[in-house]
């Protein structure tokens, strides 16, 4: 078996791309016989399928599936390359990201120890590892963003056959399993930010310690810049994934809520009958017969006027004024006057003559005279008219005299 060689690796990948792509798309790998057959069909080269198959293995393009010797799959680096270029990245669990963070934390401890020991060569070596881990985190973050966006795009596509319920379950899982736990990691107080902040401080301290070593100082500065770039990229990637997922979640949440609401109402009908559809009554659908008032010109214009009508302010209430209102009729004074004037042959004529009051007031005075215990009244027989100017009063004349007992007292 030949030694792995990168040139041969890429040459084989180029010449047999279709076969490798088919293997990538075969979820459960491919049987050796099928693989050889494809190599036979697709190959325009002179080498036999058997030879190419062996070269695939030697240059680490394919490997047997675990516990299945007759089935083959792409090796992880080749699979990763396909995922990267075909934008079919897998979602990274928060656990995978934590693994990288744990490794970085461990390296940070070593950096701290070596800096304190002023071990320049040791710091240089550990910097290389730190750079690798930081880049791993960046790659993971980018592929995770791609994976989330791929899922979102798939779910948006109308060709997928998932029902509203299934879609909502998928998008909820995406949020719950990947996006929300990531948020816990990258938010301002989360382990990602804390670790990157500590590492930045530590790199700054190391730069102070190794200020006299220009090469190491350059390396430390480069790692600091890399750290800054990765932090920014991770946060951008996370935000893009969160935004897309949340937007999709909200859209599907509405659909899901509508479905749940309909199902809940139907369930109620199932158990309680159609009378349970009280919510429908809440729609208050109009349906009434009313003569079309707008056909009648008079009523229509009245309604238009009413629609714009605003009542004017009421007149202020007038305070009663003593200068305008007549004086109160003094009953005792009236009786005394009559008493002095007795006998009075015609009470009404006397009142008109001596008082000159309006008819209501005259009638009231007339009543006081008739009711008085000091005066006696004798009614005449022939009606007579009394002229008040704009009013004519008709009545029988009343003769008024002083009651004997009271005149003597």
């Amino acid at each position, binding site marked *: 078996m030949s030694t792995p060689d990168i040139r041969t690796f890429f040459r084989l990948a180029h010449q047999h791309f279709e076969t490798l792509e088919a293997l990538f798309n075969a979820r459960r790998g491919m049987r050796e016989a099928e693989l050889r057959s494809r190599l036979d069909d697709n190959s325009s080269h002179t080498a036999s399928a058997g030879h190419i198959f062996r070269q695939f293995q030697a240059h680490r393009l394919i490997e047997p599936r675990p516990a299945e010797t007759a089935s083959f799959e792409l090796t992880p680096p080749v699979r990763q390359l396909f995922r990267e270029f075909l934008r079919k990245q897998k979602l990274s669990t928060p656990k995978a990201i934590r693994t990288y963070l744990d490794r970085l934390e461990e390296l940070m401890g070593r950096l701290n120890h070596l800096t304190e020991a002023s071990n320049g060569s040791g710091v240089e070596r550990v910097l290389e590892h730190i750079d690798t881990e930081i880049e791993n985190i960046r790659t993971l973050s980018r592929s995770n963003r791609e994976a989330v966006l791929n899922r979102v795009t798939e779910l948006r596509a109308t060709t997928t056959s998932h029902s509203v319920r299934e879609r909502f379950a998928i998008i909820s899982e995406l949020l719950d399993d990947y996006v929300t736990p990531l948020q816990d990691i990258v938010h301002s107080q989360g382990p990602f930010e804390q670790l990157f902040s500590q590492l930045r401080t530590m790199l700054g301290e190391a730069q102070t310690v190794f200020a006299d070593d220009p090469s190491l100082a350059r390396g430390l500065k480069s790692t600091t810049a890399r750290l800054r770039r990765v932090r920014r990229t991770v946060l951008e990637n996370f935000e893009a994934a969160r935004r897309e997922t949340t937007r999709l979640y909200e859209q599907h949440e509405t659909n899901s809520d509508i479905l749940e609401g309909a199902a809940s109402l139907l369930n109620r009908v199932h158990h309680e009958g159609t009378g349970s559809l009280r919510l429908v009554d809440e729609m*208050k659908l109009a349906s009434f017969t009313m003569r079309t008032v707008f056909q009648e010109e008079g009523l229509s214009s009245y309604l*238009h006027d009413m629609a714009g009508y605003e009542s004017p302010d009421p007149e202020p209430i007038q305070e009663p004024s003593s200068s305008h209102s007549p004086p109160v009729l003094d009953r005792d004074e009236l009786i005394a006057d009559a008493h002095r004037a007795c006998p009075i042959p015609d009470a009404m004529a006397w009142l008109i003559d001596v008082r000159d009051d309006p008819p209501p007031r005259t009638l009231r005075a007339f009543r006081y005279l008739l009711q008085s215990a000091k005066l006696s009244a004798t009614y005449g027989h022939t009606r007579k008219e009394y002229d008040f100017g704009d009013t004519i009063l008709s009545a029988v004349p009343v003769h008024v005299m002083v009651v004997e007992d009271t005149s003597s007292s």
Partner: protein
Amino acid sequence: MEALPHLELIFNKLRRGYHFTPEDGEVYRTLWDRFEEYQRLFDSLGLDLKKHPKNVVYLVANDNVQPGKQARRMGLFMLVLVEHFGETHSSIVSSLFDTRFRLENLPHLKAARYEEYMNAIDVHDADDLDGIVRSLVRFGFAKRVENGFMLRKAAYRFLDLCLEASDLAKEESESEQDPTPPDPPNASPDSDGSPSIE
């Protein structure tokens, strides 16, 4: 005051429960643009003219003039349609309004459970279903198209009902999971355990 345009037509349709949408063209545009004037005019008759966020204008009925039975028939018809779409389509909202429905393809009399609901409102065959579609058209929730019908934006009002029911169900579920602890006995000196309204 200047007479409002199309008033007789608008009033006659609104009082029968019709929902105006942009599909009604010029009449809708006038109603929408001068909504406040129409609203004020109807208000003087004791009628409540409403706008729905989905650009729908309709009249709200008094409690005693609602077409209760008819509304429930339409409501149940729509609930079945919504549930069916939720289980067979990737989206309810867009699918419902984009679909041309044919009576013979409706799910209402095809699944036993839906048929049971329909029978409960005296719907037994395609003619009965067509009767409900006629109501939906009359109220402006649907329109006739060749060989069938399509829903109009006014049908969002039924989706609002579903959302409301979903909220209620969530509230009920939350209150079951997190019941309010009962007051301790004799919490107040005059407490006798009988219910009271504050």
